[in-house]
Each structure stands twice: as structure tokens, then as C-alpha cells.
């Protein structure tokens, strides 16, 4: 990418997202907030996809983040967003630090399966320990405060949106920095050739481990924000179908770039909304068919459509300049 990217497009996208609350109705704002929140966990999955590793268990961190909020609200009486967000990230990162020790040893299908097993252990625990977790009923989460200030009802939704958008900006910046670091380059090389990474003096396990902690933290952040937005959390957050959905969205948007997953999540949340309106019985089927078509015809995701378009346009411009 790089040279064949439209220079103004990301800026344009950012302006659209910032201006959105002023134009769009409240229900679209809700979907956008949800999409931005989920984007972070999708990005976490996409980081590993870029290294050729599939995680069918990022629901683990997503659920850890969400239940940190749930328990914080239910048991400790915490309800400040500026406290719960770091706490959720910390909890998920700590879990990732433990699970990551194991996970750094595995590749391929085993990486996918072991991730799945860990997330299913959490799922089973959340389901069965109902006196703590509320079981299948889940936990209701009251809206959070910001530094002790409860946003007035009229602008509540908008304030959550801007809060999420701000964190999205931070996450995008952080992940760009990570990918531009030596570690980020080694991560990308992982899918190509592991042994050469070690020849160049980097430990493959260290690369996977550190990425795992980062992606766990991102998953936790997503869980926290979704808990705020939806206001209700259930054990299904840790279920493997949920994790599969994250992988799917990463692929839909295109995991080769940072904006790809963002495009993917926004597209996905709108598809979901309309599918549940027009074909509520066939939502999974819609999802499956879209996924099949993406894999067979656009394996690089929606983002590659944009990139192809951008490179054609910029070639056109260059042609105009020289001519």
C-alpha cells in the first residue's frame, strides 16, 4: 500500500466519524458505537491473522473485559468509565499474559483450537457458576459515569460514542506504532518464515507472546466498551461462535491493514441490523453466504476494493501530471 493510498481518505473517514452524531439518528449512533467497540477485538484477531495464526478464542478476552465491568458494577460498586476501562484492559492483559505462555508454543490449527479451549473453559465457568455470574441471564450493567459525572440523558448516547471514538483513535495510533516497530515487522514475517526470524536474532516465541498480550488487552477493551454500550453481558461473549465471528469480520474488512477491520466491523454491524430486520430466521445463513462469497471472490476483504480503487485513481492522477 503506502504510495497507492488516497492521502485524504483516512482524514475524510475520521471527519465522517466525528461528525456522525450531528447528522445520523440515534439508532445508527448506537450501531456505530457498537462497531467501534468491536473493532478493537477484531483488530486484535487481525494482528494474528497477519502472522498466519487464527484465534478461535478471542471471545476469552472480550468476555474478561465485559465481566470486569459486570463484576465491578455488581460487586464493587464501581461505575466510572475512566476506572473501569483501565481495569478491564489490565484484567484481560493479565489473563493473556498467563495464557500466552502456553500459546506461544503453538501454530496453525493447534493455536486456533487451544485458544478455543481456553475461551470455552471461561464460557463453561460463566455458565455454571451462576450464583456469581448470573448464568445464562448474564449481568445488567448500569451506564457508567465519567469522573463521577453522569452524562444527562439527552446526550448520554452521544457521550458514549465520543468516548469510544476517542479510544478508537488511541488504539489505531498504538497499533500503527506497534506494526511499525521491529516487533510488528517480525510479526508479519512470522506467517512467511519462522526460522529466518530466529536467524536474524529475534525469538519467535517472544514475538507471539508480546503480541498476545497486546491483542488480549485490545480484546478486553472491546469487552468493556461493549458492556457500556449494550448494558447487558452474557456468557455467550466467550462462546466460540462469537470468536469465529471476530475472525470473520477481520477477513471481511481485510486483515492486512488497520482500517480494514474498522470498515469490516461497521459493515458487519449494519448487515446484522438489516438481516435481523428482513430475515431474522436466516441471520446465520446470511452471514455464512457473505463469508463464502468473500473467501471465494475477495479473500483480501473489503479493504482491497478500496486499495484497488485508490491505486487506479492515483495512477490516473500521475498520468494527468506527466501528460
Amino acid at each position: 500500500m503506502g504510495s497507492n493510498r488516497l492521502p485524504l481518505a483516512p482524514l475524510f473517514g475520521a471527519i465522517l466519524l466525528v461528525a456522525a452524531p450531528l447528522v445520523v439518528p440515534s439508532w445508527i449512533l448506537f450501531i456505530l458505537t457498537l462497531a467501534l467497540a468491536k473493532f478493537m477485538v477484531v483488530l486484535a484477531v487481525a494482528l494474528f491473522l497477519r502472522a498466519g495464526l487464527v484465534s478461535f478464542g478471542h471471545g476469552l478476552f472480550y468476555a474478561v473485559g465485559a465481566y470486569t465491568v459486570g463484576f465491578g458494577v455488581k460487586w464493587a460498586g464501581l461505575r466510572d468509565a475512566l476506572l473501569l476501562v483501565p481495569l478491564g484492559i489490565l484484567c484481560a492483559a493479565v489473563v493473556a499474559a498467563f495464557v500466552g505462555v502456553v500459546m506461544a508454543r503453538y501454530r496453525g490449527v493447534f493455536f486456533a483450537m487451544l485458544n478455543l479451549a481456553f475461551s470455552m473453559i471461561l464460557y463453561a465457568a460463566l455458565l455454571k457458576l451462576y450464583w456469581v455470574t448470573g448464568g445464562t441471564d448474564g449481568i445488567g450493567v448500569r451506564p457508567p459515569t465519567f469522573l463521577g459525572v453522569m452524562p444527562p440523558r439527552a446526550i448520554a448516547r452521544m457521550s458514549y460514542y465520543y468516548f469510544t471514538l476517542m479510544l478508537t483513535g488511541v488504539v489505531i495510533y498504538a497499533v500503527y506504532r506497534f506494526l511499525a516497530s521491529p516487533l510488528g515487522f517480525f510479526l508479519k514475517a512470522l506467517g512467511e518464515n519462522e526460522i529466518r526470524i530466529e536467524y536474524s536474532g529475534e525469538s519467535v516465541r517472544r514475538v507471539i507472546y508480546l503480541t498476545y498480550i497486546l491483542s488480549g488487552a485490545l480484546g478486553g477493551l472491546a469487552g468493556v466498551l461493549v458492556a457500556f454500550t449494550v448494558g447487558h453481558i452474557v456468557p455467550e461473549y466467550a462462546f466460540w461462535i462469537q470468536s469465529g465471528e471476530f475472525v470473520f469480520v477481520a477477513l471481511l474488512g481485510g486483515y492486512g491493514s488497520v482500517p480494514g477491520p474498522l470498515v469490516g466491523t461497521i459493515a458487519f454491524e449494519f448487515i446484522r441490523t438489516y438481516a435481523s430486520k428482513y430475515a431474522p430466521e436466516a441471520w446465520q445463513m446470511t452471514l455464512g453466504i457473505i463469508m463464502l462469497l468473500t473467501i471465494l471472490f475477495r479473500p483480501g476483504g473489503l479493504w482491497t476494493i478500496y486499495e484497488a480503487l485508490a491505486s487506479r485513481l492515483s495512477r490516473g492522477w500521475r498520468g494527468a501530471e506527466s501528460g
Partner: protein
Amino acid sequence: MALLTIIGLDGAVFAAILFLISVGLTLIFGVLRILNVAHGGIYAFGAYMGTYLALGLLGLGYSPYWSYLMLLAGALLVGLTFGPVIERLFLRRIYGQAEAIQLLLTFSIFLILDDLMKLIWGTKPMFVSAPYILLGQFSVAGITYSWYHILLIGLSVAFGGSLMWVVRATRFGKLVVAVIHDREISVAVGINVNRFYTVAFTLGALCAAVGGALIAPTISVVPGFAVDVTVLGFAVIAIGGMGSLEGAALGALIVGLARALAIHLLPELELVAIYLMMVLVLLIRPQGLFGEVELRRI
């Protein structure tokens, strides 16, 4: 004593059911090197189709003994249609591609199948009890147990045995082993590898459908029961070693016994026990009990 007997019996029955689920999965992985997430969907389809045909026939007033045949017919129908269609239409395009793509493709087929079943048979549970009731029950050590469950154990042993015989002792099996070990050399010596892929996948799908149809009379078939099945199958073959038939048998035994123990001693831990076993085994032997160590790519 009664507790031990029931744990042993339940464990054996769970193991038989799990083996029926996972044997096709491990077969497909062994030959095609693809983890077929859609497996649970085919399994549930087999259960639905078998139940549907059996109920239909019973509704026409035929003798209940026909229901066994109908279960089998439903399974054959599902396995023989889905197997070739899925392999030819979809899987063939993604051999040798990234694992993410392969997993997601079969996952999307799984999602489509799951909804297809809801659209065809609705969301009400379906239950055919005739095959189960006909065989009656027996008592041992003060516990009443049904013969159908014992039949399941027998069938899964016979199933596994005959599959192993096919792979070890027949010409077809030897060719399959050749294809597994080296695809290119197999092509070079004149084996039609593409056809073997289709046959192996169809055989795997058939295993899933038959497994589903056999288990259907012991449970009621409800939407979404494919979801748990898929993950259980993963756990079993991950424990046993992916691609290994013996591994699937041993994995099924381990998971079945663990589940029976958990259910009778610590019911809260039922699901946790299965995945804990999987994590434990993979920690000690990452390739599974019967798996081969894969060399690192250079």
C-alpha cells in the same frame, strides 16, 4: 459400587457417541489437512433427516422396526449428497491456502447448514423414540440401563474397527495412506488424488451423518445442537492427535470418562472438565497422544 458401575457405563456410552462424532473429523483432517468446522452441521443434519424419515414412516402406520432402516437411510442421504457437494464446490478451491481461510470457509458452511435445518424442520424439538424403546432395558448392580446405549457402544466399536481395517488392509486404504504421505508422488505414480479427496471427505461426512442419526433416538433433536458437537469433536481429536483413528478412539474414551466422572461427582464442572483435559493433554503433548510432530517450515 453402583456409582462406579454407572460412571463406567455412562463413560463408555459418552465415549461411543464422541467417537462417532470425531472419527469422520479426524479422517477428513488426516487426508485433506483441513479441519472441517461444518462437521457438526452434517452430523445434526443426519440426525434431523433420520428422525424425519423415521417419524414419517411411523406416521404411515408401518411397523416400528422400519425406523432403524429409516435412520440409516436418512444418514446415507445426507452424507452422500453433502459430502461430494461441499468438497467439489467449495473445499477444492482452497486446498493449500492459509489455515484462516480454510477454517472460515468450513465455518461459513456450518452457519449455513445450521440455519438450513431451522428453515426446513422448524425450531420445535423432534424426537423418535421407537428405536430406543423397542430394544428395552436391563438391570445391572441395581441400575436400569437401556439396550440402545449398549448397541451404540457396539456399533461404534464395529465402526472404528472396520475403518481401521479399511485403512490398514485394503488396497483403497493403502492408496489413502500414500496420498496422505505425499500428494505429489501419489499423482506421479498415477493415483487420482482429486478423487481420493472427494471420497475421503464423503466418507467423513457419512461418518458424521450416521453418528447423528444413531444418536437421534436417545435425545430430542433441537436446533443448535450442532454447535456443541463440533467443539466436542475438536476436543477429542486434539487430544488423540489430529488425523489419527486410534487417537480419536482414545480421545473419545478420555473425554467420555472425564465427562461421566464430572457429571456424577461434580456436575458444575461437566463442560470445564472436557476442555481442561484438552488443555492438559496439549500442554504435555502438543501434537496429541497419537499425533505426529510436524516439522517447522523453512
